[in-house]
């Protein structure tokens, strides 16, 4: 800044007003944080590079050849010309699973990270980001960060901590792990919320030889995954929105979801090119609002609506006959009809099939078409409109558009109806049915399988699957659980089904995000259930409060990871980097561990896992150490750099050549660009020729096909039939009656449906509370309510309402809007953070201070006060202007495990929604955990356990995906005394045994 005049300074002193912009800076140093060059640096003559294009266009980014030394003007000091020298280091965003590229601007003098922009060479995000990308800076410089490893002192949950060294933490945790591993192979659990990487940690778990992976997927995408898996083996869709003619969403991809920013770009691109956008959602999401057609369906009716569209295509012969004939398992389906496994109301058809020889020739395909037309004839537009309670014209319009899609139907379901409803996996199955009918499978503008567009490179050595089965994760009752029954963990522990020796939670806040959080609270604080709880987290959360160790892990610019996602019909591999470490190394400094370059002693998991695993098996006797020895230096422990160097040199096709062309090693190339495009486009890979003995025969040619038992797209699922789900509503795409079907919601009595699982474009799940710019935009979650409902119960916007669920109630304000279906109330998912201590726990500006009371299994949470300004080194914390930071509704949600997919069905029956009572205060939550267990048992009773239904004595169909697939032997159901079928009630030694015969 220019020097103020004498009189100005005099007056400043008199008036006690600041003489210019100032930011307290000293405290950064005290905290071991990097500091920025002081703002009063004098302007200097620095050659500036102007990157205006020859044709006069402006540029988006500095060109990569300038990234190592880029000078630009300081935006804050402007119009004073203060030049700043940066190194631009690419990394990958960690704020959702999209893995968008980021470019960190690291100050060459102070090593402060000035900002995060997009990475222009990233094929998925293409240099653009959502609000969460730039907010990575908030997380990095979050005044509330945990900077050093903390160990609990006092009772668990008491909130007393002491700082320990990494060495101390590693030794202690490794000793616990070793002790557990010596006893058993399911005592160590890694429970991950946000993976943010592909395969690194899973490899470590495999190396430990345990069945120890747990995830959040069963409260998220598992249900939709099962629907896709049953069709084609892949478990997520990868729509090619940009080239679609019709984009059909049961999701809100213009604001959230995997993969929000990359998909939102391509959806709008497709729309601008003329595609029609159709969205099913009971709530007017931003996506629904941008759509050409909004279908505000009653929750659970989606399958019927989709099948009505399917029926329209079928009855009017508007489907892709040839594609169906080639790629659908119609022969198997006809056989099933012949054998009475699938009932079709066409006796003549069955007679004809009886005389047909199998396998039938192509001419029999007409019988399949006849069967389909007969099966789905009942799904009229009128029926769909009545069930969905939407205007029939809208459904017809959707059907007509889809009929004209010409193999270019890009469809996606993410969470939404699939994770909301009992039987939600059938919504995904019905949705993909439309892709199959229109032949939009893997085509340009169609929908691919996720694995086709995702590239996960192999590391230097991969340990085998565990010889064990963790029954707390995949219990007997849920042979089709697509992922671990994560959200039932506390209920299982409560029932005494087992215990955990070492429990890692990683970027995961199970008590907050899962339904029935007080059950989690009970489990987390009980040392007899969970032995050692290690929370790996960048920031405080409600569950870490109940940990034994809180270990600070890095944000997006502070760690190594590899990520690839199916953002479009191509493949890329992105490299997340600790940007200050990379900058230091480029400047010639030597860095042994990433925490040396990060704020405080914030580490990265990659190195942490290497060190921990090595210490778990110091002499190699457990067979663990060998997996962590360098491929370059035999016998010595690998470094994180060697780990990635090997992958880049050996596992990424084309990368070594691309690097060589620039005179770089593959690792240098990835350090420079942070991303590599493996395939530019990738369409219909199932049509590729397959070698003899592999793939599937189609029209006499051997093709790659699909990863199903038949190698084809499975309309009729023999697997489900064999495992006891024999009814038509399971074996083929068919509606299942949701737990919130209108028959179960008595609106006359004041019952409503609570839609609790929508996200805001500005939130990072439960991790937003460390991003001030995001919380400033979105910090509260009032209840959305239609004016008719509001009038009925006599409330208006801003009034308090008490919502009673099956197990308790909560109190929140109301937002009255026409943008919600009457009879439904909705609340955004990720707000309502709280802490128990005024000065420790979650960020005071983003959480409420709460009081927790407990009596005989009944819990009450009350807010003492909301968000408040607070003092820190960041002056912004004193500018917190909001108070309401939302209500923690999840605590009042009963668990609803879908008997098939195992996914939690998020929609809640609101037993009562009424104006708050006189004593009610905003944020009140009350829950009776006895009722929690009762509801859990009701849903458990819906299952068809493996020990009673398994056709071959295995715990689950072998071909279905499972994280960290154990050895085949471990799939065998345990032998029980007298071979009697007993519902799974505890862990038993699992001997390796041959597959048994069907009981």
């Amino acid at each position, binding site marked *: 800044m*220019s020097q103020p005049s004498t009189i*100005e300074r005099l007056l400043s002193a008199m*008036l006690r*007003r600041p003489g210019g912009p100032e930011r307290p800076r000293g405290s950064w140093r005290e905290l071991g944080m990097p500091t920025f060059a002081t703002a009063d640096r004098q302007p200097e003559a620095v050659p500036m590079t*102007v*990157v*205006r294009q020859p044709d*006069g*266009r*402006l*540029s*988006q*980014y*500095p060109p990569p050849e300038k990234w190592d030394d880029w000078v*630009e*003007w*300081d*935006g804050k000091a*402007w*119009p004073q010309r203060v030049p700043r020298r940066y190194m631009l280091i690419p990394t990958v965003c960690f704020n959702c699973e999209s893995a968008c590229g980021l470019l960190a601007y690291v100050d060459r003098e102070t090593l402060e990270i000035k*900002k*995060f*922009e997009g990475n222009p060479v990233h094929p998925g995000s293409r240099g*653009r*980001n959502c*609000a969460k*990308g*730039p907010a990575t800076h908030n997380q990095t410089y979050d005044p509330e960060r945990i900077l050093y490893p903390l160990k609990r002192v006092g009772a668990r949950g008491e909130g007393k901590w002491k700082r320990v060294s990494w060495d101390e933490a590693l030794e202690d945790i490794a000793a616990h792990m070793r002790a557990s591993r010596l006893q058993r192979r399911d005592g160590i659990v890694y429970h991950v919320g946000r993976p943010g990487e592909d395969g690194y940690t899973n490899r470590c778990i495999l190396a430990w030889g345990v069945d120890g992976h747990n995830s959040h997927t069963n409260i998220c995408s598992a249900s939709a995954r099962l629907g896709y898996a049953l069709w084609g083996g892949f478990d997520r869709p990868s729509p090619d929105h940009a080239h679609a003619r019709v984009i059909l969403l049961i999701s809100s991809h213009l*604001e959230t979801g995997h993969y929000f*920013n990359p998909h*939102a*770009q391509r959806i*709008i691109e497709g729309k*601008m090119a003329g595609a029609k956008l159709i969205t099913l959602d009971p709530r007017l999401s*931003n996506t629904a*609002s941008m759509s050409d057609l909004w279908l*505000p369906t009653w929750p659970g009716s989606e399958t019927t609506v989709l099948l009505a569209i399917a029926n329209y295509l079928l009855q009017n012969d508007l489907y892709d006959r040839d594609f169906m004939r080639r790629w659908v398992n119609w022969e198997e389906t006809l056989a099933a009809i012949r054998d009475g496994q699938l009932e079709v109301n066409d006796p003549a058809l069955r007679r004809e099939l009886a005389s047909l020889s199998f396998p039938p020739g192509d001419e029999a395909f007409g019988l399949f078409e006849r069967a389909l037309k007969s099966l789905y004839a009942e799904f009229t537009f009128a029926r769909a409109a009545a069930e969905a309670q939407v*205007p029939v014209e809208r459904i017809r319009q959707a059907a007509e558009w889809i009929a004209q899609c010409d193999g270019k139907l890009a469809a996606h379901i993410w969470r939404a109806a699939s994770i909301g409803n009992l039987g939600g996996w059938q919504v995904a199955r019905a949705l993909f049915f439309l892709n199959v009918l229109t032949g939009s499978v893997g085509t340009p503008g169609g929908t691919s399988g996720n694995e086709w567009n995702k590239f996960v490179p192999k590391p230097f050595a991969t340990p085998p699957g565990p010889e064990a089965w963790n029954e707390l994760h995949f219990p007997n009752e849920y042979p089709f659980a697509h992922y671990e029954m994560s959200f039932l963990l506390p209920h299982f522990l409560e029932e005494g089904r087992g215990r955990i020796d070492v429990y890692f939670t990683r970027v995961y806040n199970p008590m907050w995000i899962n339904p029935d959080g007080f059950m989690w609270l009970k489990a987390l604080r009980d040392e007899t259930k969970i032995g050692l709880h290690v929370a790996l987290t960048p920031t405080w959360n409600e569950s870490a409060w109940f940990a034994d160790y809180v270990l600070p892990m890095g944000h997006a610019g502070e760690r190594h990871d590899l990520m690839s996602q199916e953002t479009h019909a191509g493949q890329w591999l992105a490299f997340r980097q600790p940007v200050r470490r990379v900058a230091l190394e480029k400047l010639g400094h030597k860095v042994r561990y990433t925490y040396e370059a990060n704020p405080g002693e914030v580490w990265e998991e990659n190195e942490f896992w290497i060190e921990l695993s090595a210490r778990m098996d110091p002499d190699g006797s457990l067979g663990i150490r060998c997996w962590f020895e360098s491929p370059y230096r035999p016998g010595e422990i690998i470094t994180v750099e060697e780990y990635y160097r090997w992958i880049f040199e050996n596992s990424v096709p084309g990368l070594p050549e691309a690097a060589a062309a620039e005179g770089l090693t593959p690792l240098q190339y990835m350090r420079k660009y942070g991303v590599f495009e493996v395939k530019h486009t990738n369409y219909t890979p199932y049509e590729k020729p397959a070698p003899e003995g592999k793939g599937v025969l189609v029209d006499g040619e051997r093709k790659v096909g699909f990863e199903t038992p038949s190698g084809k797209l499975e309309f009729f699922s023999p697997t489900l039939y064999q495992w006891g789900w024999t009814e038509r509503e399971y074996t083929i795409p068919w509606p299942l009656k949701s737990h919130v079907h209108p028959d179960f919601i008595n609106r006359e009595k004041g019952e409503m449906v609570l839609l609790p699982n929508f996200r805001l*474009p500005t939130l990072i799940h439960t991790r937003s509370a460390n991003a001030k*710019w*995001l919380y400033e*935009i979105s910090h*509260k*979650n009032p209840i959305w309510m*239609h*004016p008719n409902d509001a009038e009925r119960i006599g409330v208006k*916007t801003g009034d308090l309402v008490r919502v009673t669920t099956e197990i308790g109630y909560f109190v929140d*304000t109301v*937002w009255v*809007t*026409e*943008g919600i*279906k009457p009879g439904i109330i909705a609340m955004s998912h990720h*707000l309502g953070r709280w802490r128990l201590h005024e000065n420790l726990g979650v960020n005071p500006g983003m959480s409420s201070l709460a009081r927790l009371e407990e009596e005989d299994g009944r819990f009450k949470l009350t807010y003492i006060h909301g968000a408040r300004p607070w003092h820190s080194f960041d*002056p912004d914390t004193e*500018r*917190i*202007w*909001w108070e*309401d930071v939302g209500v923690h509704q999840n605590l009042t949600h009963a668990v609803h495990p879908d008997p098939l997919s195992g996914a939690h069905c998020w929609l809640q029956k609101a037993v009562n929604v009424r104006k708050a009572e006189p004593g009610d205060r905003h944020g009140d939550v009350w829950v009776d955990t006895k009722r929690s267990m009762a509801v859990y048992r009701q849903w458990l009773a819906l299952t068809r356990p493996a020990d009673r239904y398994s056709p071959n004595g295995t715990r689950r169909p072998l071909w279905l995906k499972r994280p960290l697939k154990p050895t085949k032997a471990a799939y065998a159901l345990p032998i029980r005394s007298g071979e009697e079928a007993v519902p799974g009630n505890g862990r038993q030694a699992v001997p390796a045994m041959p597959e048994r015969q069907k009981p």
Partner: protein
Amino acid sequence: MNYGFVIDNRKCIGCHACSTACKSENEVPLGVYRTWVKYVETGAYPDVRRHFQVTRCNHCANPPCVRICPVTAMYQRADGIVEFDPRICIGCKACMQACPYDAIYIDPETHTAAKCHFCSHRIELGLEPACVVVCPEHAIIAGDMDDPESEISRVLAAHKVTVRKPEQGTAPKLFYIDGNDWALHPTATERAPATFMWADVIPLQAKPNGHAEALHPAPAVGPLYPGSVRTAHSGVAIRTPQVQGVPAGGPIHIGGGRMAEQMVQVAYNAQHKIPWHWPVPAYLVTKGVGAGLFLILGLAFALLGQPFHAPTAVVGGLTALIFIGLTTGLLVYDLERPERFLSILYRPQWRSWLTRGAFVLVGFSGIAGLWWLLETGTLMGLIPAGLSAALRLPLLGIGMVLAVGAAIYTAFLFGQAEGRDLWQSSLLPFHLLVQALMAGSAILFVIGLVFAWPPELLRLNRILFPIVLLVDLFVILVGEFGMPHATELAARAAHAISHGRYRRHFWQGSIGLGHLVPLLLLLVAGLLPPAAPWLSALAGLATLVGLSLFEYAFVMAPQELPNS
């Protein structure tokens, strides 16, 4: 070079990436925004839409903020970018009053005005603004509109676009494709609801750096259809015509408490604090007292030939000077960077009436001060009587001209405040002059309690006071608030004063206490001569209190209306 923005609402998904990228690039503190996304919900289920509107500085071709800035801290670059310099800004907040778009805020760190500056620090290097780079949809296009080959020129040539408030004559250079009328027009929606869809709503009247006085949403103005029905000559039942210029209930109602398009509500918006608080109305009063008292003395001594009375000159002159000093003090106090106030004088921007006014005030203080020094010096025998007598007439004459200037220049300053239509009144210069005479007259009676004015002066004031009170009453009731206002914003502000939140300030305060009570007291004083000094002083005091209440309402009400 002529930089502008196009925002393509066909593509904007309301993700707020631009908002955070801007905060990151420009280190914008919490509580203020250079760019934000306004959400407006319209329609009735299931025909509902949520409209997103990226909202920010329009980089007007004819920027009122630049014109009003007294020190050239806000300026228009040759390439068309409207930029600001926090090193120069004195924090007078006039630019915030001039901007009809709520684009400018006071930075809580620098205490200076700030807004979108088109990332000109990036533009100079050939880089797009941060919001353009981050936008997932490329819904924001920035570029040179003079270059026919630029993307923005091609887009503008091929699409129908709209701007915010084109009628302001500011020529905004931020164009919307598919702009939505409800989102573009700030008063088309009701005021902020009790809460936004995912954010708290702060009370509008929050002080710039403090917490708010409780503020309830203004009551709806009235039903669409008046209750009273009359019968026309033809025998048909007809509606009574409504008040001109006061929109019924804000947005267009269609009955049942609902608006056209069924629901029109702001679901999210950046929230703005009121820039000017009590110091500004207080300054209007002190300025009126100072200028008015001097004018009355000048009238008496210079024009009406009343015999000169030295103690009157000393006491009256001193009082006027004290009030003008107070005026300057209040002006400086209200600056966010008061220590920089001198820069108005040493780096003036002559188009600004704040600058012109400052010089008028300085000139007036100088002349009046010189005159007062001469008269005081003479009275104390330090200066020869001949000198002050010789200079008396010229100094009083020039002083009176400057006093009139000091009294009325604020009208021109308010006229430059293009964001506050009520202030842009052509009656205002005259009104301020009348107010000044009224205030001067009032203070004269109040001082009369402790100082014996010459009887001639008192006689003059007894005639002048009721006249100016009546004229002011006429100006207020027939002029400012009797005439319909040409623009909706002015009409709404006037309505808030006469029938809304400030109705007590207006009716009880200004009209009652400020005019009727003094007139009554003067009448009684005429009938009860012994009590006259006390009654007149009381009348003067009532007038000053009433005037303060009027000025408060007049300054505050227009600032409460949303400009975004």
